[in-house]
């Protein structure tokens, strides 16, 4: 990952208290086979809910507890479609009602502490849960401190990131609806790695699709912290040049360092950019619970280094991390999280039985992005695990260079199917 000097100083300061055991892989010895081993899964998103389901499917003797503070699952994939007016919040919001049918114990709570030596997690409500193995699937924590003024503007309801689907998605849609024709929408893209690499560019397409129909004199300024479009470049450039000609002002290497919700200004190294609606997406790190477990253990204290065949932390035994929080070459996508979850569940089942997990797991990623209300494209890769190398992308992987209607239909079907896979 690329860090500028200022970030590095901040990160090394923040991480100074974290003691890192460099390169020390403390692979937990296979637990002595227990009749009913306990797994606590933290976070019921794409990764966590899937992992809980597959642990019960493949290890019916395992007691699985899934801790999640929210009442409902709100999907980040397709949330850009809500911003574009193609879908509603109801369409991307789903209940957890089916998970207990798999024998999963759902606990509505928030984890406030992890004790890896006692193998317990402490809950906000005051109770605690013990585990034989712990799976952390918290998604990302948005580093709002890295953009000066963001927290104040966010608290005032003036500027949101909407990079976790929910109330901020609904608010951003309202702001876009209230914007006059001829207004300017300013959006920023954090430097990679971040959650959902094509997400920001899809969002620009969805907002442009809305503007084109509802307020065609409006403009979009896309401030990208990366040197170039970070994902599906051909697909998005084709849409911007052909569907939304003259509407999107794309500015690479423009990382915002400050935002002012009163003057509605985003500041980069080069410019102060004014807009009517501002959508600043700060950089991200592994979810807070990973820090509690001591598992946010890469050299910057940002992501979690794991054994990628089992997803067990390289430094904290019996703690597995899946999804966006993992340090790897795998894209941080909801789809990828579901497949981390399955490989992790399979490995845990084998380890509980005292057997070696599959030494060569395979994960696939499929990610569709809409370019308009009738067209989508995809990126797809199969990653095969190789000892010493980690996940190696099979050579045929890649992305489409133009959106079309067939892929739009598959995109919609994909969403229905992955939601069912995670929650049904």
């Amino acid at each position, binding site marked *: 990952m690329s860090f500028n000097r200022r970030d590095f100083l901040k990160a090394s300061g923040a991480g100074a208290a974290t003691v890192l055991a460099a390169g020390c892989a403390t692979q937990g010895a296979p637990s002595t086979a227990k009749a009913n081993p306990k797994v606590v899964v933290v976070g019921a998103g794409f990764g966590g809910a899937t992992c809980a389901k597959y642990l019960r499917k493949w290890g019916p003797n395992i007691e699985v507890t899934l801790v999640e503070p929210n009442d409902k699952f709100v999907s980040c994939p397709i949330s850009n479609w809500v911003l574009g007016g193609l879908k509603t919040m109801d369409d991307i919001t789903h209940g957890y009602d089916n998970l207990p049918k798999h024998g999963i114990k759902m606990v509505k709570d928030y984890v406030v502490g992890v004790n890896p030596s006692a193998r317990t997690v402490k809950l906000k409500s005051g109770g605690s849960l013990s585990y034989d193995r712990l799976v952390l699937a918290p998604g990302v924590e948005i580093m709002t401190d890295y953009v000066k003024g963001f927290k104040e503007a966010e608290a005032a309801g003036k500027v949101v990131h909407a990079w976790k689907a929910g109330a901020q998605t609904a608010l951003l849609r309202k702001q876009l609806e209230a914007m006059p024709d001829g207004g300017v929408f300013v959006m920023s893209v954090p430097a990679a790695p971040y959650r959902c690499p094509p997400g920001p560019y899809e969002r620009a397409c969805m907002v442009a699709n809305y503007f084109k129909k509802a307020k065609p004199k409006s403009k979009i300024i896309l401030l990208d912290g990366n040197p170039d479009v970070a994902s599906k470049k051909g697909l998005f450039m084709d849409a911007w040049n052909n569907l939304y000609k003259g509407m999107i002002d794309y500015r690479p290497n423009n990382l915002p360092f400050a935002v002012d919700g009163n003057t509605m200004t985003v500041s980069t190294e080069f410019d102060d950019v004014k807009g009517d609606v501002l959508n600043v997406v700060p950089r991200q790190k592994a979810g807070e619970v990973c820090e509690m477990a001591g598992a946010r253990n890469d050299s910057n204290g940002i992501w979690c280094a794991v054994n990628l065949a089992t997803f067990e932390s390289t430094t904290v035994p019996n703690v597995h991390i899946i999804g966006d929080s993992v340090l790897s070459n795998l894209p941080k996508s909801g789809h990828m999280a579901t497949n981390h979850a399955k490989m992790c569940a399979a490995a845990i089942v084998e380890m509980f039985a005292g057997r070696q997990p599959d030494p060569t797991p395979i994960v696939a990623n499929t990610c569709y992005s809409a370019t308009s209300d009738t067209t989508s494209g995809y990126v*797809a890769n199969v990653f095969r695990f190789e000892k010493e190398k980690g996940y190696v992308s099979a050579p045929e992987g890649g992305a489409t260079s133009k959106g079309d209607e067939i892929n739009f239909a598959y995109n919609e079907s994909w969403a229905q*199917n992955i939601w069912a896979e995670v929650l049904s």
Partner: protein
Amino acid sequence: MHKKLALLAAGAALMSANAFAVSHGEAIASTCMSCHGANGKSNGAIPSLAGLDKAYFVEAMKDFKSGKRPGTIMKRHAAGYTEAEYAEMGEFFSKIK
């Protein structure tokens, strides 16, 4: 009783030397579900995989890989697996009712 337990333990030891409780084939087939739907049963435009004939599945994967069968995304996926894995996945999907 003790004899029975010892036999069971010996059986378990044999199994652990030879097989995964979750086979490589089932684990990788499960990753298909994220697009093709829970238990291989799809909603919408993406085809279901549940209950497909094994030979048909294997042939389809070979043809996606070679380009003989036209498609959108499947050439990229099919090329990522071996023919032995096609057979393992096909076996798994064929058994879903």
